[in-house]
């Protein structure tokens, strides 16, 4: 069979499955989980700009996510701002924080950058928790109004699913466009070799800060969506542990690919849920799983299916499909 057709069929099948998710889920709880996955997909795609394309470590993503969620929630609850106005503002405020972190991070790399971003994330969480007059403190913010489109309020989890799906798809498409733009190529050049990139005329400062801002923007938008969807947020959600989970999503799925963060976000939201029957053991198993992934598929799951992977080679050897044969039949 022609490989092009095969791809198209897989694509259509996937699209059908994605569209049918709400009816495939056993109950509303799982639809809610699917919604959360969509939000995490946006966050993970954002993180992928910093880590996957530009090659910098960031454990601050939950902090940006929190900035976005709190901006939106505070605007909506205390100042009665409409969701459609709060959404871009959340993205922008998170992006401003991204620039603020990106500027000092210019000089740093490796452990230093890891620690600076961890520090930033922890500071954000502490401020959210303790600056009670503004952020409502540790008890969090409740009764955040939901999203309404043209006067019609989204009522069910299923409606939210399709609403968030639009955002997730936009995020992925935009990510693909950026990857294939000159900006995306600058990102990758910086990742491969900073000095070589700068001698080839790439503005290092701009590229690095832009990738931080872009990733924070994604997280901020996702945070705003999260706040309005769940109607309650508290500082606990935006912890260092959550940043690790976001980072692991990108890593497990496959950094530097559009598909990787998506696969990672889906797996890392649903697997802990499937392991929940083991109760307290599941977080411990989750830890082991991370180590195992690093040991055996450090390039991420997506690399398994890429054209030059061992799996593809094995399939080709067994005559199941290969690049050459694909075109002939």
């Amino acid at each position, binding site marked *: 069979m022609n490989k092009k057709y095969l791809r198209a069929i897989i694509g259509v099948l996937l699209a059908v499955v994605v569209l049918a998710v709400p009816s495939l889920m056993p109950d509303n709880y799982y639809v809610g989980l699917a919604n959360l996955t969509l939000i995490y997909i946006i966050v993970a795609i954002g993180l992928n700009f910093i880590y996957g394309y530009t090659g910098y470590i960031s454990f601050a993503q939950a902090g940006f996510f929190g900035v976005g969620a709190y901006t939106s929630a505070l605007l909506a609850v205390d100042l009665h701002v409409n969701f459609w106005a709060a959404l871009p503002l959340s993205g922008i405020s998170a992006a401003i924080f991204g620039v603020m972190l990106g500027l000092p991070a210019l000089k740093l790399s490796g452990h230093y950058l890891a620690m*600076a971003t961890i520090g930033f994330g922890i500071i954000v969480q502490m401020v959210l928790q303790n600056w009670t007059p503004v952020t409502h403190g540790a008890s969090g913010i409740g009764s955040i109004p939901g999203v309404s489109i043209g006067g019609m309020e989204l009522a069910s989890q299923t409606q939210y699913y399709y609403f968030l799906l639009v955002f997730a798809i936009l995020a992925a498409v935009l990510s693909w466009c950026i990857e294939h733009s000159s900006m995306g190529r600058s990102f990758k050049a910086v990742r491969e070799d*900073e*000095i070589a990139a700068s001698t080839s005329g790439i503005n290092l400062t701009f590229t690095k800060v832009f990738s931080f801002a872009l990733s924070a923007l994604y997280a901020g938008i996702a945070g705003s969506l999260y706040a309005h969807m769940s109607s309650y947020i508290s500082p606990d959600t935006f912890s260092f542990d959550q940043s690790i989970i976001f980072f*692991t999503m990108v890593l497990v799925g496959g950094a530097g690919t559009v598909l990787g963060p998506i696969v990672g976000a889906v797996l890392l939201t649903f697997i802990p849920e499937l392991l929940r029957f083991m109760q307290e053991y599941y977080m411990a198993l989750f*830890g082991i799983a991370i180590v195992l992934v*690093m040991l055996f598929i450090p390039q991420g799951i997506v690399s398994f299916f890429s054209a030059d992977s061992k799996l593809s080679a094995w399939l080709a050897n067994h005559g199941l499909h290969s690049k050459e044969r694909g075109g002939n039949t």
Partner: protein
Amino acid sequence: MGAIYALVALGIVVIANAVNVVNFAQGENVMLGAYVAATLTLTLHLPLLSSYLIAIIILGLYGYVFQRVAYFPLRKKPFITVVVSTIGVSLFLKNIARIIWGPQPIYFSGLFGEHTIQVANIFVDPQNLLIIGVTTCLVIFQYYFFAKTPLGRQMQATAQDQEAASLMGIKVSRMIALTFIYSSMLAAAAGVLLAPIFFVSADMGGSLGLKAFAASIIGGFGSVPGAIIGGLFLGVLEIFGAAYISSVYKDVFAFVILILILVFMPRGLFGEKISTKV
């Protein structure tokens, strides 16, 4: 507290120097050391000092296993892969400890119980003096060990240049294993020392490990005196910050200072030299 940060930071720096990897599970090693010692004393009724010793030895063994599983297979992989693997280990340890020892914090009194010593008008908890004393001894021991003994020199050579060290006939992988063992033992020492001040709980390691890491960067990453001074500095800063600025933000100071230091003097107070070859 500063001395504890210094001790944990020392464990991080020793590994970072040897294999250029940050062990994010160091805080959890401290927790594990405290739990093992507490179990030996409270459940098996061993005398305190021998349970300290056994806990330190057990953590040494654990250090070997840890590097075999989570570091050695990844030694040729990029730095971030190893870091994430140690984060995975730390998640595992934290949660397995919660399963084994339960979610309730355990009170495990030290050598001195509840006594305090009065020096002039100041009440001092003797445990604090013990911590400072032990840390000082360990630092002196470490200096002597790395500078004067053949084994210490071999370990240092491995840290500086693995390839050259192996050409000189040093068994590099054995030296790396030893480094991990030593670092875990340091963590265990920190754990047993800290246990009487904090309650022993599964979460005791998390922020400790991060702050110790921050301390080692404040002092200058990769530098042993830097780790010690960074740790002490952080301890003092937290106390004064809590007293004079705000106690709810106590945990923030470490990271604010960290970022300021990174922005204005990225090498820390006693930093390694950073240079990039083209």
